[in-house]
């Protein structure tokens, strides 16, 4: 049995999304600016997808949404325009991010730092979220941007963004959020969540990898990172555009917002069943309080067991999970979550997480729990730091 529980990295493509993309993949599709029937069909597909994106995010008529190759490109576009248009011109001089941002923001911020930009990294509290009050220590009228991800990709903690936005608005500083791990898991209504910029990506909402979007509220500044503009749809990102991807993203966003309530309730029930099962095992602990987490994610520590060893045992039984510390994935650039949460540093290498999607079933969760218990027992049978009752 194959169980896929790594849905915060990449999700399987939804059949309905595939259906929306199929006409563009199987038959010739024209360039957006072509003067023939194929071009007309492409323009129609593009407009339909764009409408769906606006509707799903509740974006205003005068706001901008443009398609990129994914949230890393959206984030980079935004930070580069901050540098070239606001910092190099001397209008602004600093950037505030959280220390657990996605890799694209952390690395872009490190690069900006090398160029002499002041970068403040907000630590996460013992609850695993950014404390909005800590923002006021760093906010000045010359802060160019505050960028805090809506949901932490590893722990699933939801940052209190509405409060962050409120504080930033009083200082007139624009706010950006990377909502890649939040779309389809928490309701995103841009009428009430007044962020100025928002990035999202297809691979976490059952659309294919390689498509994403950047939202910008009206009257905010934007400039392209990738040139090659021919018309308004390509104003902020040179074309030709990834039309099959855009059609897929539009459909996926529509599904994500329409089905949010009941599908996430299903995922939440399964996640809670998994969480209960894990809590029943000895020497385990779930990180981040239940109410502060997205409904599909669960990050736990397993005392006396190394993350990679546990992932290896799970993988042998066909279960795909993730960990925050396994080496070559680059998670090391972030400070350890375990230390921030005030837990025993010996647990640093003992985290394994599970991210569910609407495709997981009860049967899969039972199977996972059964094999998880077996793997823990086996690994603890020769672990020098196994919890007492096993020793």
């Amino acid at each position, binding site marked *: 049995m194959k169980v896929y529980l790594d849905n915060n990295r990449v999700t399987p493509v939804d059949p309905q999304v595939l259906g929306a993309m199929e006409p563009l993949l199987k038959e010739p599709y024209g360039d957006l600016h072509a003067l023939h029937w194929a071009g007309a069909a492409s323009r129609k597909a593009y407009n339909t997808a764009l409408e769906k994106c606006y509707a799903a995010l509740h974006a205003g008529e005068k706001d901008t949404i443009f398609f990129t190759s994914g949230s890393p490109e959206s984030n980079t576009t935004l930070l580069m325009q901050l540098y070239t248009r606001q910092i190099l011109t001397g209008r602004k001089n600093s950037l505030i991010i959280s220390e657990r941002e996605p890799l694209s923001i952390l690395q872009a911020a490190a690069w900006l730092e090398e160029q002499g930009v002041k970068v403040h990294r907000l630590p996460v509290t013992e609850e695993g979220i950014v404390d909005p009050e800590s923002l006021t220590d760093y906010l000045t009228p010359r802060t160019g941007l505050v960028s805090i991800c809506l949901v932490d990709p590893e722990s699933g903690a939801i940052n209190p963004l509405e409060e962050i936005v409120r504080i930033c608005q009083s200082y007139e500083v624009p706010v950006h959020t990377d909502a890649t791990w939040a779309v389809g898991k928490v309701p995103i209504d841009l009428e009430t969540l007044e962020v100025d910029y928002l990035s999202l990506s297809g691979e976490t909402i059952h659309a294919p990898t390689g498509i994403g979007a950047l939202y910008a509220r009206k009257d905010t500044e934007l400039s392209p990172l990738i040139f090659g503009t021919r018309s308004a749809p390509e104003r902020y990102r040179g074309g030709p555009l990834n039309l099959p991807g855009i059609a897929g993203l539009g459909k996926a966003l529509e599904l994500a917002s329409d089905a949010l309530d009941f599908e996430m309730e299903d995922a939440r029930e399964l996640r809670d069943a998994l969480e209960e099962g894990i809590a029943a095992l000895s020497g385990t602990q779930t990180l981040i309080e239940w109410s502060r987490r997205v409904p599909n994610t669960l990050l736990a520590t397993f005392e006396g*067991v190394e993350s990679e060893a546990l992932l290896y045992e799970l993988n042998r039984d066909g279960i795909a999970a993730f960990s925050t510390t396994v080496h070559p994935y680059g998670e090391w650039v972030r400070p350890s979550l375990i230390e921030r949460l005030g837990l025993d540093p010996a647990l640093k290498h003992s985290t394994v997480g599970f991210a569910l999607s609407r495709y997981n079933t009860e049967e899969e969760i039972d199977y996972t729990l059964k094999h998880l218990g077996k793997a823990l027992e086996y690994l603890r049978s020769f672990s020098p730091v196994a919890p007492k009752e096993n020793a």
Partner: protein
Amino acid sequence: MSKARIKAQGFWEDAPFKIEMLAEKPKNNGRLTEKEAKELQGTLHIHDFGNPEIGMMVRWYWVLDEAGRIVACRYELFGSPVLRAVTDMAALLCRNKSLEEAEKINYKSLEYFLRDHPSNPALPENRRYLILFVLRSIVTAAAAARGESLPDSPVVCECSGTDLATIESAIRDFDLESIEAIGNYTGAGAFCGRCIAPRADSAPREHYLVDILRRIRREMEEERKASGTVIDKPFKEMNPEEKKAAINAVIDEHIRQMLIMDGGDMEILDVKENGEHTDLYIRYLGACSGCASASTGTLFAIEGILKQKLDPNIRVLPL
């Protein structure tokens, strides 16, 4: 970057068969008790090395007999499956060795025993530090069993728990020239990267890898110049006497230990020029003579090492 570098690095799926087998079904893991030690007429020594904070911890259980020989060897482990495979192989190698012999197990021999084929490295470059970790654990366990303690050395990299002495000796032993190579062999600097060079976003530290590397490379260069024994010309331009000396040096450094570990040895009979080739005539000694692998695997390994270290046109002919 080359194609080989850009290719997606395999993880567990590309591990050699031997490592996969040992990770899946380790044979020497578990505990030994005082009772079992008594039955074996030996004393039990338990030694911890590493800690869970760096993601690697091994607890050795050794039963030593009166002559100080390791008659039984088991381990408990907190670490990745690949580390499990390496530790399991090390436990196998430690058995029936005296403490001194166990200490002498070196990187090459342990790594060689993990290979599927003599010419394919057992571990990907960025995981070589696991072998050094296990070797360090054996050395400290042996010292502890004798009641000695190793000199203290400051920790340079907290993420991997690597101390200064380990980094210094790794640079010398493996002739490391880059920070990346240090990370591959010792794990230092391969994680959060704060110990590599001073950074704006972290507090100043006592030791940085760039400084250590520069200092040791300078010392090595000076020693090399001072010794004066190094022949500084390409292998092709050497005269037969110099060629013989160069081949001898490579065999002593890279090959002989490997053979001695198996109770064998070899000697060089002659080195002859044969057109563009250099023919090396050798004789196997001890267990190697008559070994089935002497004309296949072992021979390819010897030839491969000489070809890589000296000249691609060397041929090895056993008599």
